[in-house]
């Protein structure tokens, strides 16, 4: 567990660094191209301070946009018979975890689902394992246990009908829902 936490922590730091770097480089580009209006009587120092202020504001907005996009992602998909979420979803989930940490009154419900193959009760167990894995990851990344509720629907509430791989892919999922 300690090992796992360490890894998660490292990737969180790495993710933040990447986001930070991306934000920096994009803002400096904008800075060079944007016409700089010289306010009459503004000292060089005041101008530098204002530009820095504007840069920080853009950076903040960019980060907010990224976070909002991550928070808007509320469905996470799984491979067949696999309970671990996909590595590509780590950063998005970290944003969810940080948002929960920053908003202690916010509560979410993690609904685990499976595709229809296999027996119903076993799929109920599989859906719960998927929801629990996401719950545990959110806790490791800052969310509190009492903000998170899990439930498994197994194969009882498909997102798509039909006996196709495309439908099955949509049905193997965990949905993050607001909890009452």
């Amino acid at each position, binding site marked *: 567990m300690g090992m796992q936490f360490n890894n998660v922590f490292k990737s969180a730091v790495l993710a933040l660094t990447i986001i930070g770097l991306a934000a920096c480089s994009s803002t400096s580009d904008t800075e060079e191209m944007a016409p700089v209006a010289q306010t009459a009587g503004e000292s060089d120092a005041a101008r530098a301070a204002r530009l820095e202020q504007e840069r920080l504001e853009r950076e903040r907005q960019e980060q907010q946009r990224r976070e909002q996009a991550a928070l808007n992602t509320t469905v996470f998909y799984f491979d067949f018979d696999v309970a671990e979420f996909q590595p590509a979803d780590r950063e998005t989930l970290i944003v969810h975890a940080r948002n929960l940490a920053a908003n202690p009154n916010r509560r979410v419900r993690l609904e685990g689902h499976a595709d229809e193959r296999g027996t119903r009760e076993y799929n109920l167990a599989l859906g719960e394992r998927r929801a629990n894995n996401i719950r545990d990851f959110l806790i490791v990344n800052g969310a509190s246990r009492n903000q998170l509720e899990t439930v*498994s629907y197994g194969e009882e509430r498909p997102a798509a*009908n039909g006996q196709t791989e495309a439908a099955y892919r949509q049905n193997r999922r965990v949905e993050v829902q607001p909890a009452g």
Partner: protein
Amino acid sequence: MKQSSLIFFVLALVFSLRLSAAELNIEITRGVDNPIPVAVVPFAWDGINLLDEDIAQIISSNLEQVGEFRALSRANMLSLPSEEREVHYRDWRILAQQYLVIGKISQVPGGQMVQVQWEFFDINRERKVLGEVLTGSMSQLRDIAHEISDVIYQEITGKRGAFSTKIMYISAEGAIGSTVFKLHYADYDGRRAQILLESREPIMSPAWSPDGSQIAYVSFETDLPRIYIQDLASGQRRQVTNFPGINSSPVWSPDGSKLAMVLSKDGSPDIYVLDLANDQLRQLTDHPRAETEPAWTLDSRSVIFTSDRTGQPQIYKVDAAGGLPERLTFDCFYCAKAQFLPDGVNLVHVRRETRQDNSYGIAILNVQTSRVIKLTETALDESPSVAPNGSMIMFGTTAGGKGVLDAVSIDGRIKFRLPSLQGDVREPSWSPYLN
């Protein structure tokens, strides 16, 4: 989902004679090669109005549905006797019939009751084998027909008939987001279906008490899977469990004293046994992987269950008093949802042979010889439920994109389907003997 369920949650306890829209009809998809020929002559009726039910037709259908018999077409009958003195054995020998069933129905003066006098003949031996008089109300004609079928079946095969038994099953109707789930109760052939429970949230795992008076099931009506027990006669129900996580798979011990179930309150699904006399809960398995789908051995002493402790689901058995589980299946990629046949030796289960074959069928494992017989190959078969006489297994499968109920004989030779008119049907649960 939570909000909508609060607004739209509907709970209906309807135990009237209301017919369900999703009534099932049986079609035989496969039969035996040399069925026993039986002639069931239309029963005579001394009343004025037409009867609601055709007893002879119900008996014929029953016998044909189990595949071992072929009923003679009425159009081919040379005579239509309704009592013994009208029977000419020659008429039936010409038609190569082995058995003959005749009867007459008469009104009991001054009421809604009818008397059904029926007789059963062995054509080759030219003798009457059975005869009896049954009395019931007009609304019980189907019950009378099933009872007669049971007696005939036992007389010919030596096995107790299961035509008077019932089934439960679940249906799901409506588009995603507005699905309505219903728990149905019907004759074994899907007729006279009634709705026991209706909800906007899923219903799962219907189970019968051994005396057939109560049922248990899982309902998500509180937005969480919880176990309920319902009395069939009164419709009264109570929530049995409210533990965090999964509360599922209720199943009565054959002696009726305990309810095995799955709870995940301690982190992962494990098998528990609730003593119904004192409400004591005992944990039978304790493993970080999933333990689910409990079923009892006939002596109520052990519980079999599915576990993926080795990676893939396999079937295990554990003493109900506790102890180390014993693994029962080894040579399959996915073996789950097991239940013993009444012989206590053959284990019905859902089986996927290899990772590559990607097909879930119903199979029987003889735990003494380790021999496996695959009964179905329909790809998405699940939820097998055994008739109390062990002759047939009903299960859920998918046909034409929707859930249907199929039944297959224990030797795999006979198969019939109960297609629904509306919605997906699944999770059949065959009752114990009710009479």
